[in-house]
């Protein structure tokens, strides 16, 4: 019988979005809906399903998991609600003109900072390595090189043309921490 941490991603995926009871090494039991199982540490992330309480998140370290039992199946709705907790909330739907002006404003700002940027339809391409898609915020940058990503992200955030939120120096601190956390 394989240990939890020896299982495959396919096996772990079978539990995602379902309500489970996790038994831990010290016989403690935890219930909740599975958001994910970390493939590196096999840790289980549970989201509490109580309706009237503040939502809480629990991470059970992979080495401590002895058993996981499904209590109830999730639905598309539960998946969507769970995801909304973790993923940054969607900004309001912007019109095509607003998107265009944001894209343009960002392109001009990047060019001002001597960053090689080209427009490719609705997407901005930076140095053939990074793409920025709508709505052209720092979270919309996609790149496989984390150094380039961090630099461009901080540039995007410091664009004086688009003041989305008021935090300035705080955001670059968060950015540094985020790029250190993300691995």
């Amino acid at each position, binding site marked *: 019988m394989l*240990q939890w*941490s*020896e299982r*495959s*991603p*396919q096996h*772990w*995926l079978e539990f*995602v979005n379902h309500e489970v009871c996790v038994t*831990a*090494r*010290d016989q*403690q039991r*935890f219930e909740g809906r599975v*958001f*994910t*199982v*970390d*493939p*590196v*540490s*096999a*840790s289980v*992330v549970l989201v509490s399903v109580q309706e009237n309480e*503040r*939502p*809480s*998140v*629990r*991470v*059970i*370290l*992979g*080495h*401590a998991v002895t058993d996981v039992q499904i209590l109830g199946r999730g639905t598309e709705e539960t998946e969507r609600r769970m995801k909304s*907790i*973790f*993923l940054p909330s969607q900004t309001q739907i912007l019109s095509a003109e607003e998107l265009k002006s944001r894209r343009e404003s960002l392109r001009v700002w990047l060019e001002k900072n001597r960053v090689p940027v080209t427009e490719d339809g609705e997407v901005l391409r930076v140095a053939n390595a990074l793409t920025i898609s709508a709505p052209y915020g720092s979270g919309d940058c996609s790149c496989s090189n984390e150094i380039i990503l961090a630099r461009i992200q901080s540039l995007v955030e410091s664009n004086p043309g688009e003041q989305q939120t008021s935090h300035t120096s705080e955001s670059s601190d968060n950015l540094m*921490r*985020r790029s*250190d*956390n*993300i*691995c």
Partner: protein
Amino acid sequence: MSMKTPVSVLRLPRGPDPNSRGFDPNSPRFIALCPTTVSTSSSSSGSVDEEEQRLRSELRERFLRTLLLMTDKQVQFDMLEKVRVRARFGASDIDVLNFQVSDLETPLGVQKEALLRCHDVISCSFEL
């Protein structure tokens, strides 16, 4: 007079390679500290590997978002031997071996900065 048997010196594994990001499954640190239980599927056809990689990426991204959400929050840690402590979560290392925390509340007082060994942590929880 009997001679005591000399005890062999155990050398700790070297730290991560300073020139790379450290996420090398063949690195001495990873092999020494992470049990080699993260197995890939045994069948070796290309498309199965691709699908498995896609699953791993999806699962890992969700986990990283969990860590992001946990950052700077007050977290309750359930440790071994029924020990419970609270602290502000700072960061995890790449292999989920250590958690960096601040203002760790211990019976001896509040520790400004600390590293918690993930091996000693059973679970941790926080409210949104």
